[in-house]
């Protein structure tokens, strides 16, 4: 429903501001060209999006995702010590992190949900510190190859769509670190209040 309000709000506000600013012609033109550009853009990014989805699938069947998941276990054991005691939860969390890294969103979400359900057992509907950490890990993006954005950039005429990779990694690492740190600090502050 939130999208209905967002979309409706934007369209209604556009009409009001268009009348107010005397820009109704421009608003009309934008409405027509917006829909057209959506299709043009989708067509021009279709090729690279399909290619990258294909390459990621090849990596998955080659076992790259599994290897990645294994390499994250020691780190996750330190981050989520309680959840890691259950080997199935640890397996789901590490597979979730590795799928996120490879940009396999469709695979990452069910794995993360499985982990969250196991971690939430017996806590009476209250999120534990570790469950909050898992959710923060998933709300922060840790994608190695942001294929969709690269596809948009090349559709817009960029010849080196992946030149933003170092910047994306830098910013992702800072963002994830800030999220985990905030979760730690807020959890302590919340406990003091209780």
């Amino acid at each position: 429903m939130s999208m209905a309000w967002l979309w409706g709000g934007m369209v209604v506000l556009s009409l009001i501001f268009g009348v107010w600013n005397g820009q109704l012609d421009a608003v009309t033109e934008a409405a027509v060209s917006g829909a057209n550009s959506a299709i043009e853009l989708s067509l021009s990014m279709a090729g690279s999006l399909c290619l990258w989805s294909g390459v990621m699938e090849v990596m998955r069947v080659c076992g790259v995702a599994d290897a990645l998941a294994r390499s994250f276990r020691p780190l996750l054991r330190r981050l989520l010590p309680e959840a890691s005691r259950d080997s199935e939860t640890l397996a789901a969390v590490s597979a979730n992190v590795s799928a996120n890294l490879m940009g396999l969103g469709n695979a990452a979400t069910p794995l993360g949900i499985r982990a969250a359900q196991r971690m939430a057992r017996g806590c009476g509907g209250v999120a534990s510190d570790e469950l909050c950490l898992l959710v923060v890990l998933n709300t922060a993006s840790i994608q190695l190859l942001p294929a969709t954005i690269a596809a948009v950039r090349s559709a817009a005429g960029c010849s080196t769509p992946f030149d933003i990779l170092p910047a994306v990694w830098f910013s992702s690492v800072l963002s994830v670190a800030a999220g985990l740190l905030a979760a730690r600090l807020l959890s302590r502050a919340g406990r003091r209040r209780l």
Partner: protein
Amino acid sequence: MTFSSLVLPLLLAGTAAIGLGRRVDIYAALTRGAEEGLHTLLRIVPALVGLLTAVGMFRASGAMELFSGLLAPVLTALGIPAETAPLMLVRPVSGSGALAVATDLITRFGPDSYIGRVAAVMLGSTETTFYTIAVYFGSAGIHRTRHAVPAALTADLVGFAASALAVRLFFPV
């Protein structure tokens, strides 16, 4: 030869070599994945049609400028270009909405412009926070989410500021 001109060929050839070494049918996997890519595209096209229309109208009416202007003082203090304000507002709520707004910025300012790059990095280094929180806590039966929302939004905010910083660091004018 630069780093970015090496990434694609190396990744393709490297993946192919590993796959062949492991006796995996890499071609079948490639086409299966490409089909998945088409499905992804098919799912986002209707959303893009609706949202690019709304974003275009919103910008043409002058409303976008007004909202960005309101946020500009705060954003400038954080080193974030004010033009990306709509992207930051939509990002935690809607993935396809954020893609539409970022696409609008990238095509309007150019993919290699400062604002175009910041928009791309922002999109790549943040997630649809509220959707993720709803899905995870909803399916785990959690109704007291404690500090998850503020912590996740902190990550988003730091991600936005870091995106602008990263573009300035890696692409000095």
